[in-house]
């Protein structure tokens, strides 16, 4: 054992040992499945990769030069942002309202909670398939009900927002559960005291619920932004490869998929993900700095 740990009491040492033992499986999984691949990806982004991982040629920063000059990449980045800007705020706001409503004592509470959480349990492929039919221009339920003929998922102008609607719908339940957990932490006395002082429900929401829930909101926001920047499966499943809307909906991860797994250009694909990694890091750092302004740790 190292010098530093000599000062540890037996109890501390035991805690140290057990702590590491219990997180060991997770850490091992993280290292093998996430951390090593991250570095491999960064490494590969400097290569013109050969077929089946053989015959890689070092090309320095060439892939990066190409990425920065590639109109398609910037369009994909814009698409990704457009998706995130719609999905994150709406999914947070809606699920917050739902959580507050379903936190009260009411009939059928568990039923509503379950229904709203259900999309989270459904397989993404099934979700995409169902929405694809709902949105279908010719035979879709939405156009049928509204007697319209909007190409929800193949009109380049609106397709990305249709995708975002599916995204919001899918994530609502999960966010709501997190908010519900946060709401249970807020002591009931605060609301009673506010009520005695004559505060309305809306006042309590803005002056008690929101500030005390802000750490949870912050957590949800960080994870959702990261999640939204990685959007792929919905686009892949809902938007056909030949769709005229594809150039305006494909996300960075979608391009990564196409370059790495369809075109088998793994080097360039890796470069795209490294770009995404940098963008995500930047946004997350910014959010971390900004939290001081609004997150309240009581």
């Amino acid at each position, binding site marked *: 054992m190292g010098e530093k740990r000599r000062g540890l009491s*037996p*109890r501390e040492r*035991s805690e140290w040992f*057990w702590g590491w033992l219990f997180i060991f499986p997770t850490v091992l999984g993280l290292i093998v499945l996430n951390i090593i691949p991250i570095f491999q990806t960064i490494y590969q982004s400097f290569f013109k990769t050969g*077929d*089946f*991982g*053989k015959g890689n040629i070092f090309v320095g920063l060439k892939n990066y030069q190409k990425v920065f000059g590639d109109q398609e990449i910037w369009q994909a980045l814009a698409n990704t942002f457009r998706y995130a800007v719609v999905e994150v705020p709406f999914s947070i706001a809606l699920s917050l309202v739902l959580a507050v409503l379903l936190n009260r004592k009411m009939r059928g509470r568990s039923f509503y909670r379950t229904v709203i959480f259900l999309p989270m349990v459904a397989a993404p492929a099934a979700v995409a398939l169902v929405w*694809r039919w709902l949105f*279908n*221009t*010719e*035979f879709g339920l939405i156009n049928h009900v509204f007697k319209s003929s909007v*190409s929800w*998922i*193949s*009109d380049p102008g609106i397709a990305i927002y249709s995708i975002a609607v599916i995204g919001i719908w899918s994530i609502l339940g999960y966010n709501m559960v997190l908010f519900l957990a946060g709401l249970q932490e807020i002591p009931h006395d605060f609301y009673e005291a506010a009520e005695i002082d004559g505060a309305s429900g809306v006042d309590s929401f803005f002056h008690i619920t929101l500030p005390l829930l802000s750490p949870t909101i912050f957590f949800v926001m960080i994870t959702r932004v990261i999640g939204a920047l990685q959007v792929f499966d919905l686009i892949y499943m809902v938007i*056909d*490869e*030949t*769709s*005229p*809307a*594809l*150039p305006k909906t494909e996300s960075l991860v979608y391009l990564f998929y*196409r370059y790495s*797994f*369809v*075109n*088998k*250009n793994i080097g360039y694909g890796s470069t795209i993900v490294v770009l995404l990694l940098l963008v995500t890091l930047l946004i997350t750092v910014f959010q971390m700095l900004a939290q001081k302004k609004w997150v309240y740790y009581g």
Partner: protein
Amino acid sequence: MKVKSWTALALSACMAASLAACGGSGAGESGTKGAGETKEAGESTGESDAKSDASGAELSVTIWDNNQEPGIKEILADFTKETGIQTKISVVKWNEYWTMLEAGAQGGSLPDVFWMHSNESERYMSNDMLLDLTDKIKESDKIKVENYPEDIWGLYTYKDHYYAVPKDIDTIALWYNKKLFDEAGLAYPTADWTWDDLTEAAKKLTKPDGSQYGLALKMDNNQAGYYNLVYDKGGYIINEDKTRSGWDDPKTIEGMNILAGWLKDGVIPSAQTQTENGEDVLLQSGKAAMALQGSWMVAAYRDNEYTAENCDIVELPKDAVTGKRVSIYNGLGWAAAKNGKHTEEAWKLIEYLGSEEAQRKQAELGITMSAYKGTSDAWAKSAKFNLQAYLNMMDDMVIRPYSKSTVTWETADNEIITKVYTGELTMEEACKKMAEQMNEKLAEEK
């Protein structure tokens, strides 16, 4: 504390041990098979030993077409009856198929026997991923090279070595909806049609309110669709030695302009419509009166009530000027993994699948036309459609254009063509762009 923690450790160790035992029992069982043969049971290392035993080998077979699975299963059952070698088939959809195969090739875990396609074959052959069948074919009395179309061998030949045995052959024909033709008071298409006749009929079959279109032709339907127009006019997509694109050839553009005319006349549904509902859906729902479809679609249309009732097939139209009636054709191959555990058995299976007997059965069951010459006649009787049209299209065939990076330039081509459908580009601009990007990618192949 200490006592407690050590008991906990002991307990968890027990649990881990029991888990490991669970996992190990499978290997243990198969190990006993091997142990029976070797005297020193301790040396048997389980899995690998047991599986080298031929009778215990199970060949994994992977294909991508759901429609063909039931028929191929029957043929595989015949093979098992004859040789005692077990097989296990799995179907993986086209897109995922190539992702899976790529990962399998890289990780050394390819299926034992699987389909190969001209889009990808060269990458796999040139990287030594496929079992070299050259000597085996030479020694075989079932597989004779001359019994299969030369061009299909060409797809699976690399440096004069064969890496797959031809499985099938496919051609293109015109599907039409009899009911819609009757409603419009038009005579059904015949083998004497020219593309102009098709244009005229398509105009009459298109309703202005968008409820019905003359022809469905999706943006990425090159093989069954616009490639045929190009070759009818004497154009080409890629040159013989695969170094240059033919997209900007004047004759190619002339062929593509037939498609441009259809788009201008509005006889083809919009890109939006076709991207959401493929040609098959449009034909099956009576929204499109005609579609150019490959012979691999027959099973699907046969099993669909509407198309079985209302649709039929005729040869592709001819070009009025050149008099040519070209069908792009292609053929899949049965390939085996080079580093597979059961290459001997895999070859036996491939040899069987390529044999006259199995090829004839494949045609009879209506799975597809077979590559073995003269075995496809039975296929024409496998459904109530005029399947003879597909066989007649064999008279003038051009192999589906391919190179080492087919997928890469085809994907880009499709994206550019889509812009013609949406009106962002003229056909001529698109052809120039496609030539440009394709030449770039062909240069990188070297």
